[in-house]
């Protein structure tokens, strides 16, 4: 098995797979982390009184604003609901990419290695 691992590691197509996967994973993960950070800022820095200023307080204040004048629903509710829907969407987007394009590349890389191992024997 170790022999196969070495063959795969030497294959440039493996590094293409790895680059593609890692670019996809980290792009999507940073979207999730940024949204979560936004959510935590909204909760952590919500200003106790109207006079508080500053970047974080201003971001957080938005969370408690009604969506329409006179409405009870605040932006925070909509953002929270939208984040859950967005996260589900990202997961489904990832699985389509990973089970399709990336897995096809992975199978090709394994096939390359098996062929090379046979030729060496």
């Amino acid at each position, binding site marked *: *098995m*170790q022999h*196969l*691992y*070495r063959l*795969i*590691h030497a294959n440039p197509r*493996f590094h293409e*797979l*790895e680059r593609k*996967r890692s670019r*996809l*994973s*980290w792009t*999507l*993960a940073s979207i*999730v*982390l940024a*949204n*979560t950070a936004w*959510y*935590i800022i*909204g*909760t*952590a*820095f*919500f*200003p*106790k009184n109207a006079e508080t200023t500053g970047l974080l307080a201003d971001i*957080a204040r938005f*969370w*408690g604003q*009604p969506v329409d004048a006179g*409405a*009870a*629903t*605040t932006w*925070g*509710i909509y953002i*929270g*609901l939208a*984040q*859950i*829907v967005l*996260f*589900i969407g*990202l*997961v*489904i987007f*990832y*699985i389509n990419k*990973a*089970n399709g394009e990336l*897995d096809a590349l*992975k199978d090709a*890389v*394994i096939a390359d*290695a*098996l062929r090379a191992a046979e030729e060496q024997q």
Partner: protein
Amino acid sequence: MKKLKQLPLLFGLGLLAWAGSAAADVATALHNMFTLPADTSAINTKAVAMFFGFVIVSLGITFWAAKRTKSTSDFYTAGGKIGGFQNGLAICGDWCSSAALMGVAALIYSTGFDGLIYSVVPFGAWPLMMFLLADRLRNLGKYTLADIVSVRMARVPSRTLVSSASLAFVIGYLIVQMVGAGTLISNLFGLNYEMAQVIIGVLIVVYVAFGGMIATTYVQLIKAVLLLSGATFIVFLVLQKFGFSMNGLYQAAVDNSPLKVGVMQPGVLLPDPVNAISCGVMLILGGAAMPHVLMRFFTVPDAKEARRSVAWAASLIGYFYLLTFFIGYGAIAFVMKNPEFLDAKGVIIGGANMAAIHLAKAMGGDLLLGFISAVAFATIVAVVAGLTIAGASAISHDIYANMLRHGQATDAEVMKVSRIAALGLGVLGIVLGIAFKGQNIAYLIVLPFTISSTVFFPVLFLSMYWRRLTTTGMVTGGWLGLASAIVMLVVGPTIWKDIMGHPEALFPYKYPALFSISISFVTMIVVSLLDKSARAKAELASFDDQFVRSQTGLGAEGAVQH
């Protein structure tokens, strides 16, 4: 090295001492257990009947599953034969504990918007788990978290760390569930607390010891369907009252709540930024590395199915969390001002934890109350079963088979130890559940998430992503992080001030995760960089092989051999 080998033993002895101190309560407990409540009309017959239905079906499944549980692989991972959709539902069952239904509703009921941090932020753990961990975990692992780490790290020290932390995680979580169940049952079914502990304990041991992962999976699956449909129905009825206007519901909540518009705004539950950030980081990183959930990645045949099951799980759990936006506020609208659910002082009967349950009664009368009560009980039973199988695997696979017997034990011996471990955990659950009766267990809810984010997440993440991690670095950082987390929890406001009654807490924050995670990560990195031993060099050299396997699944457990 020799010292490290003694650790599981010491850990076990500590647990025994802990359990032993509870023995005095057992006599009173036994007496209480066989005394029926004076007022038997308090027993909710509809709820009891529906719960019995669940018990009979699940025992039938256990009987069927027991015949199919022949090897350790069947026991730990159902032979890796569960399909993606089924596994997704079962993961949803594992994840959505009673805390997700009743706890989030309770927090929204008493603090409004901030309670939703327990819905949205832990849900963020799902996409993270999917993008960064799921593939690699499935490709490297076999039965437990410790398997993944020991692909590259020295077997005994890494397994000692991971299995001890897993057991601490499982036991902390177990106590929360058992105490929650006891309280719930005395409120709902009118049965007494001790009886509830025994019923749950016995059911769990039967499911896990005989039916293994197959029975546990089906119990989770049924429970997930019941929970999702019950919660959907409540939300449907709540929104119907407002002509399906979301704003109508929130307006009613604002009108009823003493917080007024504050109920729709942040800033009540987590008033200072450090606690809020620490709590958020704990929920997202801790949620991404729970052993009883990650273990389910090994019940499917390959990484493709693992991804499919995560996608199903994330969709179902996300859907459930969407419902929590309406259940908690529904309780404010229909329970908070309703004299039927308030005591003489105007306080909600049974505490805020009962908000979701009262809402069920307000919406659908006794029948829906009975159904939701049965669902809540089934939820606890299923989560405890998932925890028990994770704990039993840590004991039999990590500690017994790999550390004490160095992989020389036969399949039959390991199976026997697994079953004994399941029995032991069931008994321990009952004893601890009774010992912690009526105590403030708030800190215990923070414990599993803190352990998961401080130990499991850094260990898994660095061992898979960072070439330079060495066993010494990992073990030093893991133990230091774990110890610092426990110390900070003990001297923090919840235990030191509220429970032990000291005037001031020595550590000012309720959520120590931000600090313990930093200690863990920094120590692992610094010690690994300083580690120049021969073992460290070998571990560094083996990273490439591990990396290829984690990316391709070649050589993974249960994968089709080419």
